[in-house]
């Protein structure tokens, strides 16, 4: 039974996939079964983590840690099967061109299926998931609000019937702070910081959620380290250090607590995951 769902988001390129993997790994060290899921049609983790396979059905990634790919279509299929129950009808349903195109155009249906899957444990709906917590490498900031808004919006459009009931309960658990924890990953750069502040505020005001915020890839350099360097080098590094300072000040001014995650300058992904995981210990 899933007790907590962690949704990780951030502007594209901030390192949220690696963060999600590190977060899942940290949680798995407490000896409870954890699932790491990515919301992609086309797996990112397969290549990134050098996995032999990744499917909708979870497979073992590390001790106490399984990994799965939640392609929106697969979530929708599972949802349909659970509702329709009859196998032959299900086959007819999912293999029908009408359904296929319906899924392509019906707004938010895929988003709904993903969140339906995520909240299936507390809603006691759908197949049982034997995990204590789930970490989802979710959409980047641009699409993230649309994802969270899908259940509410669909409930407004179709308040009655089976779909009306489903959307209402999904929306309820997405807004439940004891169940949903959002993690916002940011970078010490102007645009990611601005987007993080905006999203943080919207999530707080619109959903009553309090996201945890991370300032990722901070550099272990101070202005005093730059003495005696070539002017172009100095200027470039000073720019990085200044941006970092601006990021810290901005978050402070907005009253947003941040956890800094220093840049791990290592090309080996597993090493970086282990190191970031160390930094997260005790924080999550």
């Amino acid at each position, binding site marked *: 039974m899933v007790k907590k769902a962690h949704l990780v988001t951030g502007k594209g390129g*901030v390192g949220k996939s690696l963060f999600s993997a590190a977060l899942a790994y940290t949680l798995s060290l407490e000896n409870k079964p954890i699932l790491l899921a990515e919301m992609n049609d086309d797996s990112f983790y397969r290549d990134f983590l050098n996995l032999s396979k990744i499917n909708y059905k979870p497979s073992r990634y590390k001790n106490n840690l399984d990994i799965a790919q939640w392609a929106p279509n697969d979530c929708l299929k599972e949802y349909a099967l659970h509702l329709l129950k009859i196998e032959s009808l299900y086959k007819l349903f999912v293999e029908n061109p009408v359904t296929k195109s319906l899924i392509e155009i019906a707004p938010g249906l895929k988003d709904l299926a993903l969140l339906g899957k995520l909240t299936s444990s507390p809603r006691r709906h759908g197949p049982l998931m034997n995990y204590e917590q789930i970490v989802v490498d979710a959409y980047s900031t641009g699409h993230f609000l649309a994802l969270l808004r899908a259940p509410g919006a669909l409930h407004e459009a179709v308040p009655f019937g089976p779909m009306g009931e489903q959307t209402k309960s999904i929306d309820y658990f997405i807004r439940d702070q004891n169940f949903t924890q959002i993690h916002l990953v940011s970078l010490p750069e102007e645009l990611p910081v601005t987007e993080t502040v905006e999203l943080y505020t919207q999530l707080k005001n619109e959903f009553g959620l309090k996201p945890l915020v991370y300032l990722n890839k901070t550099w272990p350099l101070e202005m005093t380290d730059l003495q005696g360097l070539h002017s172009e080098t100095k200027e470039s590094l000073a720019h990085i250090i200044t941006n970092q300072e601006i990021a810290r000040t901005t978050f402070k001014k907005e009253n947003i607590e941040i956890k800094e995650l220093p840049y791990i300058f290592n090309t080996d992904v597993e090493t970086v995951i282990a190191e970031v995981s160390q930094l997260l210990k005790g924080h999550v």
Partner: protein
Amino acid sequence: MIKLAPSTKTLICIGSGGVGKTTLAATLAVGLAFEGRKVLVLTIDPSMRLAQTLGIKLTGEQEKVNLPLEAKGQLYASVINHQKIFDWFLEQASKGQADAEGLKKNRLYQQLTGRLSGSQDFTSLVALQKAVSSEVYDLVILDTPPSQHTWNFLKAPEKISALFNDGIAKWFRQSTTNEPRLLSRFLNLGTTQVLKALETLTGSQFMQELSMFFAAIKTWQGPLESYIADSHRLLTSNQTEFLLVTALDTSRLIEAQKLSREILKQGYKLTSVMINRVYPWVQMNQVEQNSWPTQLKHINNYYQDLETELTSHFEILKKSLNIYKCPELRQNSDDVKNLAKNYSKIIHL
């Protein structure tokens, strides 16, 4: 400086998020306009930064960018307004018939145009095609959404066409006739069961909206089919080049490798790879490096390792690929001249 075939009319910049694709598209546009071409740059992300840099508004119009006197060509820029483009397409497709107004009131239509990223992909292609076919410009540069979406973007024509295949739209229109007996005569047993299943899943109200939606868009079919054919022709044209933008970062590297393989497999003309936002001090000479603090030497090695890995991957993938490096742009002094200066610093590897 970058090399484009003289006959190239369209340059599509692809790449994952955070690689600075939007700014790079603008940099290339400015640089090529300085060299003498008449360039239009279209951006999909409603980026305030690009708009500010170029001094344009976010209205979706193609606006002329003021270039300094030394520029030999002209530059136009536009931030794609998806709603406007969609409405324009709809009006064209329905030939101004009354159902366009009715459709705009349909909630499904509103959500489809407003929310679906799929429709953004669709509208971007419409905007691109509109601009290229106007033959006003020597070159149109398109900035695309991040890689997860780049794929959607290229598949947009297929997705839309799937809606009209297998007589689906016709099927839905028939089911709105309010004549259950007539309806069941048209439908075979399988379809009736699917209809029931859909109702179980979604509730009948949703089905009604859906049917209305399909009924309303029936005039689309013809124009849409020709649009899909045109889009495919444009994307695979010999006059269209793809440029992959990436950065020195482990995740970006893996995404770039994946994306480039896919692009080539699908037969698109990938000609160039740009390693963007490279720090100027990476690969400084040894003498300079001697004075560096230890951690900077370590950081430098990390970036060099990434660059070596990246270039060797692309050399194996396709020998004829042009690989470039573009230095990071200092963000606090964005203006057209600064972009032109950065363009001149692009190195061909």
